[in-house]
């Protein structure tokens, strides 16, 4: 075997092992795609400052702050076959951002359109909430979510009307999985900020790709984002980690 062959083989070996180690170390970048129609097997996409789409096709990624400045524009791809069983869906999202400094808020609440709450006339559509700080403590939040209860009970315990029903007939409450909303013991109470989102959508069975957008703010001090998604449409559920550099 010539020296040249040995060198080529060594380089190939380094390339292969480097790839394996790198994936363990969470350095992977999201995969760019030219069109959303090209996305087949994954559901979460990210849009960069130039409008290019990236597929979140793993569980741990490194993101370049220059490529995604200020805000991470995520979307869930809402595109299903005509015979898909579910027609109305909801998504619960919990984002845990770790900052290098200590921001004033610990817990923010966000809710999109299409959520309902009981009223004297039957039900009322709630207005959207955009990243409103929860005035209570993390302990109070967890205590409120420790016992079973519907959105009415939770709104009393939390003293904020955030939990709601995804259907006008008061079904599909956001309280159906209270453990999901509890703040984990591992939460960094000095550097962490949790943002909870409630999103509702109609399942899209048309030929066009529908999007369920949500945003995660990326201040300069944000170092890591842990994203947990739960939905009654199973393919949307997942856990992701993003290291910001």
């Amino acid at each position, binding site marked *: 075997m010539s020296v040249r062959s040995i060198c080529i083989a060594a380089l190939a070996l380094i390339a292969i092992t480097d790839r394996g180690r790198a994936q363990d*170390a969470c350095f992977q970048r999201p995969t760019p795609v030219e069109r959303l129609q090209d996305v087949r097997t994954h559901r979460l996409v990210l849009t960069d400052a130039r409008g290019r789409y990236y597929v979140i096709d793993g569980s741990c990624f490194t993101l370049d702050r220059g490529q995604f400045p200020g805000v991470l524009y995520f979307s869930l791809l809402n595109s299903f076959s005509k015979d898909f069983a579910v027609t109305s869906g909801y998504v619960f999202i919990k984002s845990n951002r770790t900052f290098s400094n200590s921001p004033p808020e610990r817990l923010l609440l966000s809710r999109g359109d299409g959520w309902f709450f009981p009223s004297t006339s039957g039900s009322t559509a709630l207005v959207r909430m955009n990243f409103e700080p929860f005035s209570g403590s993390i302990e109070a939040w967890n205590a409120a979510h420790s016992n079973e209860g519907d959105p009415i009970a939770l709104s009393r315990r939390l003293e904020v009307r955030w939990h709601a029903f995804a259907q006008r007939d008061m079904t599909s409450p956001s309280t159906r999985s209270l453990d999901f909303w509890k703040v984990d013991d591992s939460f960094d109470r000095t550097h962490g900020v949790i943002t909870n989102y409630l999103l509702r959508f109609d399942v899209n069975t048309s030929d066009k790709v529908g999007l369920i957008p949500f945003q995660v703010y990326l201040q300069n001090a944000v170092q890591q984002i842990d994203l947990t998604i739960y939905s009654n449409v199973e393919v949307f559920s997942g856990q992701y980690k993003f290291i910001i550099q």
Partner: protein
Amino acid sequence: MAAPIRAHDSAEDRISKLLPADVTAAFLSAKAGLVQALGENAAEAVFWTFISILILCPFYFWFVTKAKNYFQVAFLCLTFVVFAISIADTQFIGYLQQYRLLANVGGSINVISTVLPILWAFLISRIFVEAIGSRVERGQ
């Protein structure tokens, strides 16, 4: 289409013979088919299709298009690389950034894929024709 450069060729003819439309078209078709079939997972297949075509290029230019001059064949191969990066920049970024050393390759490929094809077709090819064209002719 790639073909031997001859002494009586006009400047336009010479430049057109430095742009490998045939292999570029083949790669374009292959890329479209792979993306259609594999969606966001097509990056690796597209990249290795490019490498395969690149390996075949010298033989194709030499034996099929009869471009029997090393300079012209090398230039045609380089031209294919430039156009291929432009055609499949998204897939190349998707595949190469899996490697730790190339994790930040995206920005460079974006710039190359945008700027280099124009420079290559309108400037570098003309420089090549003027600088090396006569040597290519003598080699026929």
